[in-house]
C-alpha cells in the first residue's frame, strides 16, 4: 500500500516536472527580460524601463556585475538566465567564441542603420558578416584642466609634463591607462607600443609633476575642487558630469597626439529565454528617445547613434567634443590584452612608481 502510493507519487512528480519547469519559462517569455550590466549604467534608469514596459508590455529585470570577469562567469554558469548583456568591445569576440552570446537579427533593430559605421561594423563586433553585439555607447580617456586657472588653450598631451604645472598634475593609479598615456605621448600605438623603454622614461619624467593619484570620479572632483589638480587625466563622461552637476571649471581635452577610446556593446545571451524582447530592448537603448534624456538629465557616455548625438544640445560635451569627426580620427581604440601583457604592464608601472618614491 505504502509502496504504491510512493510509486504513484513518484511517477506523478516525474511526469509533471518538465511541465513545472516549462511553465514559468513560458510565462516569463511573454513579458519579461533579464539584463546583465554594471549598476547605474543606463539600462536600469527607472524612467526608461517604465517607458519601455509601457510601450511593449515587457518588464525589465536586472542583475549586476562588478567586473568583466564576473560578467563572463555569470554567462558561463547560468545559461538561459539572461536576455541582454552589456559587453565591452574587447570581450565580445571571446564571448562569441565561447558560445556565450548569439548573433543578432539586425533586421529587427530599426535604429541599427543610424549607428556610426566605424563602431557598428568594427571587427570587435562582427565575425563572418554576423553582428554579435550592437554598438551602444563610447567614451574617451584623456585629460582635463582648470580653465579658470589656466587661460591658455591646451591642445597637447605635453601639458602633463609642462613644468608650469609641476606638482599640480593628477592621474589614475592604473597600469594600463598610464602606459597608454606614455604611448600617446611618445607617438606610439597604445595597444602595441614598440618601445616600452621610451614609455617608461616618459612616465618616470612625471615625478616632479604629480600631486597624487585618484581612484574614483568622486575623489577626482574633490582633489580638483581643492586646487590639488590643475591638469589631470580624466574620462569624458565624468568630465561632463563634473562640469554640469558639480559646477567645476573642467575643460576636457582631446589632444593632437590622440586619446584612448573605448566602446561598449549590447548583446543577446546564447540561450536567451526572450530573444525578441531582448532585441526590442536593445533597439530602445540605441534610440534617441532614450539617449537624449539620459545624457541631458543624468550624464552619459557618447552614443553610437549618430541621430541621437545630433539631437543633443549644442553645448553638450558629447556633441561639441566627441561629436567632431576630426576628434574621432585621433582616437586610438583599446584592444584586448592577455594575462601576460597585463602582468608585464603592472610590473613596468610598479617600477615607475618605485622611481617616484625614491
Amino acid at each position, binding site marked *: 500500500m505504502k509502496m504504491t502510493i510512493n510509486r504513484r507519487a513518484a511517477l506523478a512528480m516525474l511526469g509533471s516536472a518538465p511541465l513545472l519547469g516549462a511553465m514559468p519559462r513560458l510565462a516569463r517569455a511573454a513579458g519579461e527580460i533579464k539584463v546583465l550590466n554594471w549598476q547605474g549604467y543606463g539600462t536600469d534608469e527607472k524612467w526608461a524601463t517604465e517607458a519601455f514596459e509601457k510601450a511593449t508590455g515587457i518588464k525589465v529585470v536586472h542583475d549586476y556585475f562588478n567586473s568583466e570577469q564576473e560578467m563572463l562567469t555569470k554567462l558561463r554558469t547560468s545559461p538561459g538566465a539572461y536576455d541582454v548583456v552589456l559587453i565591452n568591445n574587447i570581450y565580445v569576440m571571446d564571448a562569441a567564441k565561447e558560445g556565450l552570446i548569439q548573433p543578432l537579427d539586425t533586421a529587427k533593430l530599426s535604429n541599427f542603420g543610424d549607428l556610426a559605421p566605424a563602431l557598428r561594423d568594427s571587427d570587435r563586433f562582427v565575425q563572418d558578416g554576423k553582428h554579435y553585439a550592437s554598438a551602444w555607447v563610447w567614451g574617451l580617456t584623456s585629460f582635463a584642466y582648470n580653465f579658470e586657472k589656466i587661460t591658455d588653450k591646451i591642445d597637447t598631451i605635453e601639458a602633463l609634463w609642462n613644468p608650469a604645472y609641476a606638482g599640480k598634475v593628477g592621474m589614475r593609479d592604473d597600469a594600463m591607462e598610464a602606459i597608454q598615456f606614455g604611448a600617446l605621448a611618445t607617438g606610439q600605438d597604445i595597444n602595441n607600443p614598440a618601445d616600452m623603454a621610451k614609455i617608461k622614461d616618459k612616465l618616470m619624467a612625471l615625478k616632479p609633476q604629480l600631486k597624487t593619484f585618484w581612484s574614483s570620479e568622486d575623489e577626482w572632483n574633490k582633489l580638483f575642487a581643492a586646487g*590639488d589638480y590643475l591638469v589631470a587625466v580624466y574620462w569624458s563622461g565624468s568630465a561632463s558630469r563634473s562640469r554640469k552637476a558639480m559646477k567645476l571649471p573642467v575643460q576636457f581635452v582631446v589632444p593632437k597626439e590622440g586619446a584612448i577610446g573605448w566602446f561598449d556593446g549590447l548583446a543577446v545571451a546564447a540561450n536567451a529565454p526572450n530573444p525578441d524582447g531582448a532585441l526590442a530592448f536593445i533597439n530602445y537603448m540605441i534610440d534617441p528617445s532614450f539617449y537624449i534624456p539620459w545624457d541631458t538629465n543624468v550624464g552619459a557616455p557618447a552614443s553610437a547613434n549618430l541621430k541621437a548625438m545630433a539631437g543633443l544640445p549644442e553645448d553638450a560635451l558629447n556633441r561639441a567634443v566627441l561629436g567632431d569627426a576630426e576628434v574621432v580620427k585621433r582616437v586610438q581604440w583599446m584592444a584586448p590584452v592577455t*594575462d601576460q601583457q597585463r602582468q608585464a604592464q603592472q*610590473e613596468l608601472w610598479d617600477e615607475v612608481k618605485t622611481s617616484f618614491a625614491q
Partner: protein
Amino acid sequence: MPGAEKHLRVTFLVAPAYLWLALTVFLPLAVMLFFSFLTAVPVGAREATLTLQHYVSFFTKKIYWYNALRSLELATYVTLACVVLGYPVAVILTRMITGRAREAIFLMIILPFWTNALVRTFSWTMVLRGPFDIIFTYPAIVIGLVHAYLPYAVLTIYVSLQAIDERLIEAARALGASKRQAFMRVMLPLSLPGVLAGVFLIFIPVTGSFMEPRILGGKDAIMLGPIIESQFTATFNWPLGAALSFMMLAIILLMLALGYPLLQRHMER
C-alpha cells in the same frame, strides 16, 4: 576515571573554537599557500601548473624586494613613534591619574578604534592640509598609521606597568637611585614585555598596510602592501600576490627567530 572524564569535557569545550580557527584562519591560508605555487588562478579556461617562479621573482625583481624593504622601513618608523609617544601616556595613566579621569582618558585613546579605518584616513586628508600641508607625502603616511596603531602601544604598556610592584621603585629610590636610574634599571626592564607585545602588534600589520599609504602617500605610496593588493584587484595574479605575502611573513618570522634569543637574555637579566 575523573581525570579521563575531565579530559573529555575539556576536549568538547575546546573543539568548536579550534575547528572555527582551522576553518577561518588555516584553511584560507592553506589555499593561498597552494595558489602561491601555481602559474595562474585555476578558474575558467586557465591552465595552472606548479611553479616556484613567484618566489624567485621576489629576489630577482627589484620592485618586490626593494618595496619589501620600504614596508619594513615604514613599519620601523611607525612602531618607534608609537612606543615613544605611547610610553609616557601609559606612565601618566598608571601613576598620575586615577578613577573617572583615567576612564575618560582611556576612552579617548580607544576612540579611534571605534571609527572606520577608511573614514579615519580620509579625515586625515583634510587635517594634513591646513597650515602644515604635508598631505600626499611620506610623513603623512606615518602620521596616519601612528594614529591608527598608537592605542595598541598605550594599552599593552599600560598593562605591564600596572603589574609592577610600586614598592620596587620605592626601594630603588630609598637605596639612593636617582629618578632616572630607578626608571632605567627598574621600571623600564619590568615593562619590557608590554613594550614588546605592542611592538609585535604594530610592526606586523603595518608591514602589510596598503590603504593608508595609498590615500595619504601620493607619490610615496608604493610599498609591498599596495603591490600585493594590485595583484588581486588589477592583474588577477593571485599566485604572485600570495607568494609576496608569504615572503613578507617569512621575513618577519626570521626577524623574530633572530631577535628572540637576544630579547630573552635581556629580559632575564
